[in-house]
């Protein structure tokens, strides 16, 4: 019966998920505390910043501002207020942008997500392909070439790759735009707009993926070499199965697990990578937002970005563990 095959989460997996979520709570609390103390460490408080902007600052005006922001209260009261705000998903207000920080971040998240997911997809698919090729011809020239390429990939700064791609494809060849997300001259709609965004995405996605292609190539290569030596592969070979079929069905499939883990672990660094790439390509995402926040001394916004991206990493790690627990029943649940 087909119905019997419908997957239902087994109690084992559900219990595992519950334990993992419980473990995450102290981490979230600690990040909140850390964020708060970062805010206080910064030289000058919000009142000074705003007064400095206005140009004139009487002591009375400063006191009024401090009272408004609750800065005249004790550290503990301020902390409790901060946590209360966060509990309501309020990340504070960005005075530079006259907008709540959360709204600002949420307006940028889709742009960053598009960039990151495309890069990840490209990196994983090319990486698995290269890794499989490398493992299959281990020690021969395709392996040597790909190893050399990934050695370079590990060592080259992402932003520099981006700049060099701009020189080649935008300045010299004039094939692709050097920055931004849309064509600002023409107000494109529908399919033309999608094609336009895609054109703007090519270079940033390539530069962001460059380093991760190297990682996935190496990971796939070593995972496949490891699986190749296992008994069930020897059995398959002894049965006379076609080598390509063995490579795909038996080896690659089992080599995928470490790749799943890696993808989860990589999310934080991928976010970091997108900060520089968005800066290079003037891509209107979270990274660019963080960059602007640094130069406008908009600490609320900067910490909001840090908090939000840490939160994303936590969620991604949970999902990875969850997927892993489903994929591999041997995983011990502690």
């Amino acid at each position, binding site marked *: 019966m087909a119905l019997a095959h419908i997957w239902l989460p087994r109690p084992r997996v559900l219990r595992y998920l519950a334990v993992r979520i419980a473990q995450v709570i*102290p*981490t979230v609390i*600690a*990040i909140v505390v*850390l964020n708060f103390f*970062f805010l206080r*460490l*910064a*030289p000058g408080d919000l009142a000074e910043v705003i007064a400095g902007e206005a140009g004139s600052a009487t002591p009375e005006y400063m006191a009024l501002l401090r009272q408004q922001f609750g800065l005249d209260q004790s550290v503990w009261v301020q902390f409790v207020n901060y946590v209360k705000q966060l509990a309501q998903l309020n990340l504070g207000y960005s005075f530079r942008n006259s907008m709540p920080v959360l709204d600002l971040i949420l307006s940028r998240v889709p742009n960053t997500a598009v960039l990151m997911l495309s890069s990840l997809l490209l990196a994983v698919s090319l990486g698995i392909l290269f890794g499989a090729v490398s493992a299959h011809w*281990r*020690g021969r020239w395709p392996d040597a070439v790909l190893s050399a390429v990934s*050695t*370079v990939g*590990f*060592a*080259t*700064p*992402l*932003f*520099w790759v981006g*700049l*060099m791609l*701009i*020189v080649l494809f935008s*300045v010299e060849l004039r094939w692709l735009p050097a920055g931004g997300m849309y064509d600002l001259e023409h107000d494109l709609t529908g399919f033309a707009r999608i094609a336009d965004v895609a054109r703007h995405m090519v270079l940033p996605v390539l530069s962001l993926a460059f*380093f991760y292609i190297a*990682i996935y190539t*190496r*990971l796939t290569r*070593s995972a496949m*070499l*490891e699986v*190749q*030596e296992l008994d069930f592969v020897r059995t398959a070979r002894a049965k006379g199965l076609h080598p390509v079929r063995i490579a795909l069905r038996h080896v690659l499939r089992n080599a995928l697990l*470490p790749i799943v*883990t890696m993808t989860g*672990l*990589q999310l*934080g*660094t991928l*976010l*970091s*990578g997108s*900060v*520089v790439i968005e*800066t290079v390509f003037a891509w209107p995402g979270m990274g660019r937002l*963080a*960059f602007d926040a*640094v*130069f406008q001394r908009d*600490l609320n916004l*900067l*910490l909001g*970005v*840090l908090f939000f*991206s*840490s939160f994303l*990493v*936590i969620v991604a*790690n949970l999902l990875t563990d969850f997927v892993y627990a489903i994929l591999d029943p041997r995983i011990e649940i502690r």
Partner: protein
Amino acid sequence: MSMQTTSISLPVANAASNERVRPFPGASSLSYRLLRSRTTLTGSAVIAAVVMAALLAGSIFDTDPLDMVARPFIWPLTDARHPLGTDMLGRDILVGLVHAARVSLAVGLAAASLAVLVGVMFGAASGYFGGWVDQLLTRITEIFQTMPPLVFAVVVVAILTPSVGSIILGIGVTSWPQIARLVRAETLRLRESEFVQAARVMGMGHGRIIVTHILPNAISPVVVAGSILVASAILTEAALSFLGLGDPNLISWGSMIGSGREVLRTAWYMTALPGVAISITVMALNLLGNGLNDVLNPRVSLT
């Protein structure tokens, strides 16, 4: 774990892969080892050259790298007196590259040392004492691992205002968790070994056992991870300087890329050259790390 902007993937950051014994016999075949040793030699030679250049920067080129010495915008290989050309302010690029090597290497070394110091303390205490100490320290480690490394470093440097010190601190606090996890795993392995038990029976104190028995036996993977950390710290410093968070009084490869970017369209060599310097140095450090790994922990494979 890995992050080029950023910093390099430390294969050791996940304990499972670290403990993996090299699975295929071919890996230790003669040709493989020869290839490895050749790349390791190349890596060490390049690093030695970069270190020499950094140490001798002052005596080879006694000019200040920030001084204007010639007409701006001289392309590389067109003027024998300035083989790598000049930038938009007429500063010699070769002199800049060599002086910047100093800053990049110093920041890389200092940040990696800081990370190793903190990581070893956390990892050793966590693995040796176990129980609630381990629980607490592991949680703290996880918190630092959760925050995206570069964003975190940017926040630290922005809040403390950009200077060599805050950059080292920013990179250090984002990279110690990898070392801590590594040392913890090693300590857990060593804690129950016979010589540690013997020391305990002899009445040796915990601190002394850790320092004289556990750390010396756990140090070789730390050395390997440390050399790779230097590489990743150099990449992170470059990213920070590129973002305008470098020390404003010093010239580094990242800041050269950052300033060259303004004239990218007309004089891309100003951006290209420091990037090549970073790539070569980081690549050499990674090769050296792989080589050290083969020598120090031949059993364990670096992915």
